[in-house]
């Protein structure tokens, strides 16, 4: 066997043409999708605003001006004021903090439980898989929306509980997606090749399964956030979610709906904030799905 000179081997990587990984290809495709890029930028903007709200908000959260009452948008109050003379822009910004936080944290809960559950079921297979997925099937069949309402009634309106309850609903889909990913990846020849190389199961999951399952997981995470936010807004609208003194977009919409005949801006601006965010997330999610070439199991 010929041994190469070390100088020659140094050339090996230097002269090599850089390859384009699937991630880079996907990024290129995503950048061409105007709706997805627009969604991403809007979302980023909203997140930054939410993080900096205490410094950016034009008025303090508690500030009332009962003399002013509900007034339409003006130079002093860009989005108007509510019946207590509170600045609507400030309310919407603080509400956004809560709505976005619920969206991201509950999704993170769902992601953590779902991915772990699905990965174990998919990789171990056999009887373990059958039992684990039967549990998911049974939970799927439960009318969760009703259950969340029930939970909120029984245990009071607690934000932490809200995170848990919503996360507990949404992890089911995540678990199914992760399981089907792991199952189909397990049968791929490159995983068989890794087994015949003698790689340990942990290494196979880390090096071969997860990097390939990441695409669908990112896509469904992006699409889970809006459905979680909708759920929160729905519960808050019914008066079963976020409670004063805290506020959220759902709660603001609910107050706005009560007085929309006289003060329509109280309904329109929080509604606009919520729909814009949902739009951005959905367009970003759809764009990611196309860019990462994930076949949709839902819609």
């Amino acid at each position, binding site marked *: 066997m010929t041994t190469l000179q070390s100088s020659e081997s140094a050339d090996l990587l230097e002269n090599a043409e850089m390859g384009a990984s699937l991630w880079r290809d996907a990024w290129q495709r995503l950048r061409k999708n105007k709706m997805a890029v627009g969604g991403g930028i809007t979302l980023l903007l909203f997140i930054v605003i939410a993080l900096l709200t205490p410094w950016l908000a034009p008025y303090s959260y508690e500030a009332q001006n009962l003399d002013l009452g509900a007034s339409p948008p003006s130079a002093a109050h860009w989005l108007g004021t509510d019946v207590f003379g509170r600045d609507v822009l400030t309310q919407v910004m603080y509400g956004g903090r809560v709505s976005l936080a619920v969206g991201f944290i509950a999704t993170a809960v769902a992601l953590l439980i779902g991915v772990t559950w699905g990965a174990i079921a998919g990789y171990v297979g056999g009887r373990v898989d059958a039992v684990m997925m039967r549990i998911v*099937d*049974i939970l799927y*069949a*439960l*009318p969760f*929306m*009703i*259950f969340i*309402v*029930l*939970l*909120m*009634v*029984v*245990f*009071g309106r607690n934000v932490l509980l809200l995170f848990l309850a919503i996360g507990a609903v949404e992890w089911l889909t995540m678990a199914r997606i992760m399981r089907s990913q792991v199952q189909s990846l397990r049968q791929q020849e490159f995983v068989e090749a890794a087994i015949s190389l003698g790689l340990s199961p942990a290494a196979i999951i880390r090096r071969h399964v997860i990097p390939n399952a990441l695409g669908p997981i990112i896509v469904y995470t992006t699409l889970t956030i*809006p459905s979680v936010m*909708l759920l929160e*807004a*729905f519960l808050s*609208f*019914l*008066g*079963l979610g976020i409670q004063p003194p805290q506020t959220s977009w*759902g709660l603001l*919409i*609910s107050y*706005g*709906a009560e007085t*929309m*005949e006289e003060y*329509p801006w109280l*309904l329109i601006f929080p*509604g606009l904030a*919520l*729909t814009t965010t*949902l*739009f951005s997330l*959905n*367009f970003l999610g759809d764009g990611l799905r196309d860019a990462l070439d994930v076949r*949709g199991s839902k*819609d």
Partner: protein
Amino acid sequence: MLRFIISRLLQAIPVIFIVITATFFLVRAAPGGPFDAEKVVLPEVKRALEAQYKLDLPLYEQYFAYLTDLAQGELGPSFKYPGRSVNEILFSGLPVTAELGFYALLIALIIGVTAGVLASLKPNTRQDYIPMSLAMIGICMPSFLLGPLLVLVFGIYLEWLPISGWGSIPGDKILPSITLGAAYAAYVARLSRAGMLEILSQDYIRTARAKGLPEWQVVSKHALRGGLIPVIAFLGPAFAGLLAGSFVVETIFQIPGLGRFYVQAAFNRDYTMILGTTVFLSTLIVLFNLISDVAAAWLNPRLRSQLSGGGK
């Protein structure tokens, strides 16, 4: 096929049982009894009331008593409306909610399937973008926002349609049905577009074209059936969503349906009512999931023969 239906029914039983049990103990675990809030009640009256509602028995006996009642279709008396049973309240609200749900589903299917199929026939053209952008709006515009907005525009500014009620003024059913159906129309549109695109790329569509079939026959005869199976399978979950959506819509439009009763019961802490409604709605949802599953399987000849023969 019969065996499939029976096995699915057998699977549904534990689900319903879990729902009943979980709901029962959750409600019982709630802090504070149903009569705590009413301070005027004397201790002996309270005791008498508790005896009447069997609250003085040990928890497991209450549970078995409830199960026994349930087995006879009896959901118990309402705490808040003495003299009325949960059954009576449910059955007064059910027809209204059922009618509302039916119209909403009809709107969702007609608009959704039409838009989805049209979009799938000319993907990435205006015929695709316009309906799909509308669908996206439908998905991002929750019913509790769409409802008030529709009321504001068509009820208050234009004064075209009544803004509340159900069946008392002509046209008062239009806005609630649209509000409830819009989001599902959007989902159905996306589902049928994706399903049709998948089928239209199949080899057998090329075979159909090679036979000289006109395009409308290729679509109607060869593509639609397979393309719409996902929509059929979605009907079960959609039904569950519609019921939950009726909470909001019935509240907004002040419709005396199940959803409004449920939300009211939740606020009133009317425990037997919550318990009864949850059990009833859950059973309905489980059954609907079952029906849409069976229907989707029935439409696929391969599954059908596997299920009915148990062979091949």
